[in-house]
């Protein structure tokens, strides 16, 4: 009977002992989570105050970031959105750090993978932000230049350039995040290659006579003689 009881109690004791060994890890995780969330909240408040002080919202309004948010039906202040993003990134980082404190082998691997992925996320965000600014600048420059040259299709061309540049930047971001890298690369190459071929064919077929005329004028004909100058130089 005693053996039977031992047989039953031993696994329970073992579970209890494992649980007791696990409790400090669990407590550590909870403390890390609590401290992390509080710190994230504090940082969010400080960041939002800082952004308001440097008039980040007005800057975003002028640079078009606010409109970009509105297109996504996000009707908050840009500073609040950035504060929220930073808050949730810190919460996720804290969660990962907390999970690491549990000392579970499977979770440890996940945590290591997560932290090694973070730099990629950061650089993708930087590429996206700079790329968006660059695209807006180029698109606006094209709009002004083409409109000043008197062409009707200035807006269309500027929008087309904006879309193409954004596609290129999104491909770079996806590549950086290592999401379906091969597919993105292939799709991007096909799309851009297709556009270039289409333009080449369009010009080749439609502009062949013009091109021939230009080349013939350039190389075949002798340059016209300059008319004698009316002004007598001293």
């Amino acid at each position, binding site marked *: 009977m005693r053996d039977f009881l031992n047989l039953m109690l031993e696994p329970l004791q073992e579970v209890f002992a494992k649980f007791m060994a696990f409790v400090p890890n669990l407590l550590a995780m909870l403390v890390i989570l609590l401290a992390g969330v509080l710190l994230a909240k504090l940082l969010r408040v400080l960041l939002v105050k800082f952004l308001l002080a440097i*008039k980040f*919202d007005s800057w975003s*309004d*002028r640079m*078009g970031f*606010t409109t970009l948010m*509105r297109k996504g039906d996000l*009707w*908050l*202040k840009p500073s609040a959105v950035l504060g929220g993003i930073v808050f949730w990134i810190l919460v996720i980082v804290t969660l990962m750090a907390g999970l690491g404190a549990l000392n579970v082998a499977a979770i440890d691997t996940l945590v290591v993978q997560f932290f090694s992925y973070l730099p990629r996320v950061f650089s993708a965000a930087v590429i996206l932000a700079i790329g968006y600014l660059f695209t807006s600048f180029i698109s606006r420059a094209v709009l002004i230049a083409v409109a000043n040259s008197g062409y009707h299709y200035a807006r269309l061309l500027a929008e087309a350039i904006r879309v193409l540049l954004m596609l290129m930047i999104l491909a770079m971001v996806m590549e950086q995040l290592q999401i379906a890298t091969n597919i993105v690369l292939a799709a991007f190459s096909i799309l851009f290659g297709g556009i270039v071929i289409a333009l080449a064919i369009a010009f080749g077929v439609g502009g062949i006579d013009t091109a021939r005329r230009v080349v013939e004028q350039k190389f075949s004909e002798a340059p016209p003689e300059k008319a004698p100058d009316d002004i007598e130089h001293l």
Partner: protein
Amino acid sequence: MSDFFQSGIITTLHQLGQPSLERLESELLGFAKTRPIALVLPALYSEFERPAMPGIVQELTKVKYLNEVVLALDQATEADFKRVRETMAPIQAEVKIIHNKGKRVSEVYETLRRNGLDAGPQGKGRSAWLSYGYVLARGKSDVIALHDCDILTYNRILLARLCYPIASPTLNYVFCKGYYSRVTDKMNGRVTRLLVTPLVRSLQQLAGQHGFLAFLDSFRYPLAGEFSMSADLARINRIPSDWGLEVGSLAEVYRNYSPHRVCQVDIATTYEHKHQILSAEDAEKGLMKMAVDICKSIFRTLASDGVVFSDGLFRSLSATYLRQAEDTLLKYESDAMINGLAFDRHEEAKAVEAFTRAIAMAAQAFVENPMGTPLIPNWNRVRAAIPDIFEMLKLAVDEDNK
């Protein structure tokens, strides 16, 4: 039927003979193909619970030449907004409702505020201004007409006559103000009759002939809330956010365009709407508040055009105005008698006394702060500060209306 006399420096389009609504609407339908027309309606939700608005909506359902109707709704909850959408649904033209208290439109106002472009407090001025912005953002209309939403005697001929001078490609007008007689069984429109006209004529007596005063005096009903204009004018005009809205808007039209391109049109034989109390003792509400704001707007417009206001001028103005207003009062009494209208001379005299105090208050406010509350900036300036504002406004309103 009115006379056909042309007075003042702007064109007056009278109602002569029997007006044909069918002819007007069929011509407007043709004009609208090349000059699409938008109707702007600044409204409070409470106006949908009164008898005027259902009547207006019923009339608008029969109008075929409108390209779009933009209703700027104030003091409405989400549920009220939905009810208004249902009420406006029978109108044939595309209807868009600007939910001023909604999350998205509030954020547009906030965006403007943080960029130093305050659209002012809630009111008709702000609502009208944002509606113009939305019409410009859509870029689908060349003519904008606006009327109040408390007209009890609304008939669609009012809208047709209001739109005609601007929509017509052969008439070269950019701004058209409606006029009508504010008569029921008695004479209404006290602020126009007993304040604006006598004040303008007193100022002409004191300050001499001045272009703006002649311009303002040309309007038969300068405080009428009904007008139409070209979309270009909506782009460059600034708007006051207080009760000086009508006078301030006329000042902007005077500043930006020649009087040859401005007209007024007789739009209704009878006109009845919500009345304001005089509030002679409290200058913060009722007609007194309106009177003070109007006087301030006139003083500031004249000052910005080089007229020098001294203490002496203001003292003389009170006396001159009082004489002018009393003479005017006698004229209207005679007019009322021959037409068998009720005329409470004592009440009218009390209104004149109150308006005299309003002029003094406005004069004091002007002396203390000659610049006053800045006008709501024009849309060209707003776009210079926030290039994507039209896109943002369009997104906000379109999302709300989905």
